[in-house]
Every structure is written in structure tokens, then in C-alpha cells.
């Protein structure tokens, strides 16, 4: 097979496109977890975002309403989670799992009338510049606005957590809600906000799947990507830049194994299919093996309920 430079550009572009939903959902969940809340409902919020985006696009015909509607749907469903875990002090793990089950069920119910309807074409930016630069052209140009946002998000998230006052407050709440509370920070309010933000990003990730990546609705179309996003947060040790690396490796190996099959590489297909999971975990474990740094970035109170009547 002849490997030319544009072929590599095409492959990298499709790897990036497949990493988008993982990056969005992971970066959202990262903020939620950094505030000390473990929300296992990412898959459920994503699928709600997917059906909401697709349904709104079909009904209203407006892509902008659909995208923001999907984020709002993610916010609404995560409000349930926030209310249960923060106001009623329920267990994070159980509530998060329930949220996923709820999301999958309700999306299937809403989605009944939207099966078999083609989606609308989502506009891409700078399509014309694609062929102007070899290799970089297909990587940099001709993508949707959500794509560019997703690749900016890890850097924004990193800056937000490290350099801004609100970022510091979020981390403080996640590390020691008691101390934060004694400093006059409204822990519950901060956690509510972080949960809702996570919901919005998961909703956007779902909408990306149903509106841009594969414009259609079928039940369970997120196919477990929410769980992978969750795993990425943990294996990246709550570091947004490592999430980006992990998502690229995961998306990359999924696509490269298809290429290897098509070329006819004589490796058992089942092994190739398992490769993305294995390698992503290994790489993230290796790049995050500094235990001092892990201690610093792990939210100490993750998943613990905070009781305080204020």
C-alpha cells in the first residue's frame, strides 16, 4: 500500500472527529469530579443530549436551537442528579447509575417517533482551505464548530482550574468541602453548578453524535461512549490535557484497527477490537505514574456527600 501524506492527514482528521464526544463529556465530568461529585450518569446524559438535539433539529429545523436545546436537556437531567445528591444527600454512585438507566429509557421513549428520519447537514468551516496545505489541510479545516470547541476545551479547562479564582474554589470544594465551607464558600451551590456544567457538556457530546458525526437517531446510539469518557477522567488523573491524549489514542486505535483489517494485517480481529481499551489504559497509567502529582490532582472528597445545613 502506498502511504501518501494526505492519507495520513485524512486518518488523523477522522481520529480527531471520533475523539470529540469523548473530550466533551470527559472535560465536563472532570469539572464535576473536581468539585467532589462522582456522576456516573454520563452515558445517560449523553443519550438524552443525543435525542434532544435530534428531535429539536427535526421539529424546529434550527441547528442552533437543537445544539443549545441538547445542552439544556443535559442540564435538566443533571439537575435531578444534583437535587438528589446535594439536597437530599443520596449516594453518588447509586444515583448516577440510576441516571444512566433513566436516560437510556426515556430517550428510547421520546425517540420512537424519530427512528428512520434522516438528519440535516451540519455546516463545516473553512471547507475550501482543506486542499491548500498538504497533511495539515484536512486536519485543520472543514470541521464543525463543535469540533473546534472540543479541541479548545481541555486547554480552557486546564486554565480555568489552575489560573482562575472560580477554578480554585471548585478545587477547594472538591478537596475539602469542610474547609471551603468554613471560608464562607457555598459548597452546595458550587457543586450544583459543576454538576449542571457536566450535564451540559455531556448533552453537547450526545448532540455531536446524533447531529454531526452520524446524523440519525437510533436507540442506544451512544454505544457506551459515556462510560469510556468516565474512565478517561480517572485514568487521566483528572488532568484535562491527558484526557485529550487519552481520547485521541482511544479514537485513534479504533480507527487504525479498521485500517489494519482493511489492509489485511494478519492479527486476530478480536485482539484488534480490544486494542483501543488496552492501550489507552496502559498509556494513561504510564504517563500518570507520578504518585505525588496524582495525590495533588485527585479530588480528596470525590464521591463523598457533604452534610451541612446552611
Amino acid at each position: 500500500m502506498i502511504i501518501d501524506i494526505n492519507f495520513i492527514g485524512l486518518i488523523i482528521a477522522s481520529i480527531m472527529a471520533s475523539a470529540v464526544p469523548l473530550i466533551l463529556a470527559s472535560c465536563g465530568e472532570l469539572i464535576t469530579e473536581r468539585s467532589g461529585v462522582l456522576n456516573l450518569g454520563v452515558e445517560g446524559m449523553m443519550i438524552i443530549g443525543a435525542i434532544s438535539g435530534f428531535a429539536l433539529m427535526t421539529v424546529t429545523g434550527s441547528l442552533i436551537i437543537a445544539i443549545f436545546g441538547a445542552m439544556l436537556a443535559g442540564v435538566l437531567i443533571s439537575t435531578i442528579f444534583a437535587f438528589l445528591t446535594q439536597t437530599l444527600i443520596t449516594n453518588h454512585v447509586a444515583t448516577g447509575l440510576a441516571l444512566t438507566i433513566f436516560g437510556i429509557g426515556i430517550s428510547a421513549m421520546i425517540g420512537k417517533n424519530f427512528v428512520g428520519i434522516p438528519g440535516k447537514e451540519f455546516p463545516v468551516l473553512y471547507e475550501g482551505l482543506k486542499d491548500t496545505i498538504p497533511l495539515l489541510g484536512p486536519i485543520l479545516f472543514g470541521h464543525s464548530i463543535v469540533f473546534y470547541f472540543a479541541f479548545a476545551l481541555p486547554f480552557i479547562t486546564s486554565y480555568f482550574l489552575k489560573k482562575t479564582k472560580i477554578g480554585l474554589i471548585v478545587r477547594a470544594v472538591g478537596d475539602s468541602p469542610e474547609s471551603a465551607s468554613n471560608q464562607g464558600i457555598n459548597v452546595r451551590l458550587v457543586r450544583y453548578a459543576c454538576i449542571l456544567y457536566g450535564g451540559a457538556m455531556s448533552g453537547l457530546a450526545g448532540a455531536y453524535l446524533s447531529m454531526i458525526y452520524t446524523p440519525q437517531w437510533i436507540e442506544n446510539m451512544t454505544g457506551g461512549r459515556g462510560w469510556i469518557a468516565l474512565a478517561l477522567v480517572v485514568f487521566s488523573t483528572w488532568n484535562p490535557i491527558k484526557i485529550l491524549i487519552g481520547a485521541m489514542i482511544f479514537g485513534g486505535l479504533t480507527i487504525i484497527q479498521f485500517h489494519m483489517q482493511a489492509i489485511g494485517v494478519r492479527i486476530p480481529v478480536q485482539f484488534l477490537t480490544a486494542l483501543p481499551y488496552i492501550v489507552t489504559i496502559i498509556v494513561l497509567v504510564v504517563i500518570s505514574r507520578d504518585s505525588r502529582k496524582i495525590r495533588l490532582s485527585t479530588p480528596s472528597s470525590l464521591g463523598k456527600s457533604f452534610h451541612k445545613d446552611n
Partner: protein
Amino acid sequence: MHKFLIRSFVSSLVLLFTLTVAAIAKDVKAAFVYIGPTGDHGWTYQHDVGRKAVEAAGFKTTYVEGVPESADAERVLRQLANSGHDIIFTTSFGYMNPTNKVAKEFPNVKFEHATGYKREHPNVSTYAARFYEGRTILGTIAGTMTKSNVIGYVASFPIPEVIRGINSFTLAAQKVNPNIKTKIVWAFTWYDPGKEAEAAKALIDQGADVIAQHTDSTAIVQMAEKAGVYAFGQASDMDKFAPKAVLTSVENNWGPYYVDRVKAVANGTWNQKDTWHGIGDGMVVISGLDSQMPSDLQAKVKKLQADLASGKVHSFTGPIYDQKGNLMVAEGKTADDGMLAGMMTYVKGVEGDIPK
């Protein structure tokens, strides 16, 4: 796991409700057991279209979706049989043993099992569709329309149904164009739009200009549309998802058979049968041909379709060799149904190995 929990819960609710409704009516009642959700726009969706045809013919129907191929299936079947259903369609291969087991307990209820081969009791029939006939047509079109001589094929799981499709497709494509190569990629899923799209993209990036699929979602034809290559619809007419890419679709059309069998129960003429219908009986339907296909190809396809329907042409007509060059079907012979049902070897010309 969670999916399974909610499905079981919702299924039992639906079941409870429908059983209550069903108990009131008096005519022939048909029940359908589905492996997937009716919203998959693929296998289960098409069975449900068939069920709606039965409703339209004036019969009461019930369905239970997302039933696992385990002891759960038996429980669901027993409940359906107990609650006054006269005929029960079980629409997945894995329901074979539960169907026969429950059929023994309810000799007055008729059972119809899709894609299986066990008929242990006189009240069990089996039925399946010869989808490979449709793939002979797709192969003919693909072999003619390709310019790069590379045809991509997104496959799901290595089972005889899928292998048979790949073979039938490749044999037909080679017949019109001996230079073609069929590149196969296994997605190991029946439907996951993201994965299917990625598989199709990989094949397109490697030069395939016609993509065939044996997975259910419309993601592949949409990807083909974006990339400007050709594709074929699976299970239902997918033309509206990719008007430029889709040349034709092979549709699963269960409705006529279902209506027929339910009517037979109503008339008291139902008897045990093993049905394997193809294009001729209308169980496999070829959608309208795209106008991008040259008129001589369209004529050729129409004729092939008629010949497959009449039995003049068989998808597996010898000489057929396997990958190692061993003769599978001798010159002038056709593969018998037993060979087709258990087909687990690639024919010559297919690249790669079948995943074990």
C-alpha cells in the same frame, strides 16, 4: 447490564399491559418476541413493520422487545402462550430452544421461529429469508459501478448468515468484473453508528469506492454520501438518508408472511412448515434502482432479479472454489440449502481470514 435491567422492567410492564388488553379480545391474537428495540431501524424494526401489517389486516397483536436469548425468553413465551395468544413469532436465532421447549407445553398455540432449524413439535414452524439473493444483485451493481476496483464491506459477526452474504456478493461482483477486490472489515456490532461510520471511513480512505454493509444503521450510507462514493441500504430503503450514495437497498419484508400465517390460524389451515423465501416470494425486496446506474446495468439487474425470482439463476452456481482452491460446488451444480445454512468458509477472491 443497566440496559438489560431497564429493558426487562419496561418489557414486563408492556407485557402486563398488553396481556390485559389482549385478554378482552376474542379473535386470533398474534404475539411477537423481539431481540432488540423496535427503534433500531434495522432487524427488529423491520419485524415490527411486519407486525403492523398483521394489525392492518385486522388482527390483534402484542410484542415484547429486548428479550434476551436466555431463560427470560422462556418466561416471556410461557406468559404469552398462557394469556390467550394463538400464534407466537420468535424473531431471533437464539430463541430456537426456548421456542421448542415452550411449544411442547402449549400444543394448541402455534409457534413460528425465525432463522432457526429445529421443529421438534408439530406446532413449531421455522422461517427465514434468502437475503443472499439480494446480495447477488448488490455484487453485480458494485462490480459494475466501481472505478477503483476496490469494494469495501462492513461486516458484523462471523456467522453463516454474514459469510453467505459476503460470498454471494463477491461471486456476483467477480462475475461482472474479475479485477475487483473485496476488503472486509469486521465491526463486531450489529448497530453502533459511530463505529460503523469509522469502519466505512477506513475503507473509503483505502480506496474503496463502493461500500456494502451487513450492519444495521444508516451511518455507513451517510458516510458514503459525505465521501462521494456508492453504498447500499440494509434491511430498509435507506435512499432518503443518502440520495446520491445509495444505489439500491435490500429490504427485509416479513409482512406478507406474517399476515399469511396469522390468517392460516384463523382459517384453521395452519400447518408445520419450513419456509426459506427469497426475492421470488417477496420476502426479500430490492428497492428502486438509482438513476446514476447506466440503463444497460439497470436492465441487467432487472433481468437478474427476475431470474433469481423464477429460480433460473441461483446465487451459488458452480464452479465455486474456496480460498485454498478446493472445489465447493461443481460446475453446473448449485449449493444446496444445507451447505448454505452452515456456510463458514470464504469463496475464492475474498481477502483475509474469517475471525475465529
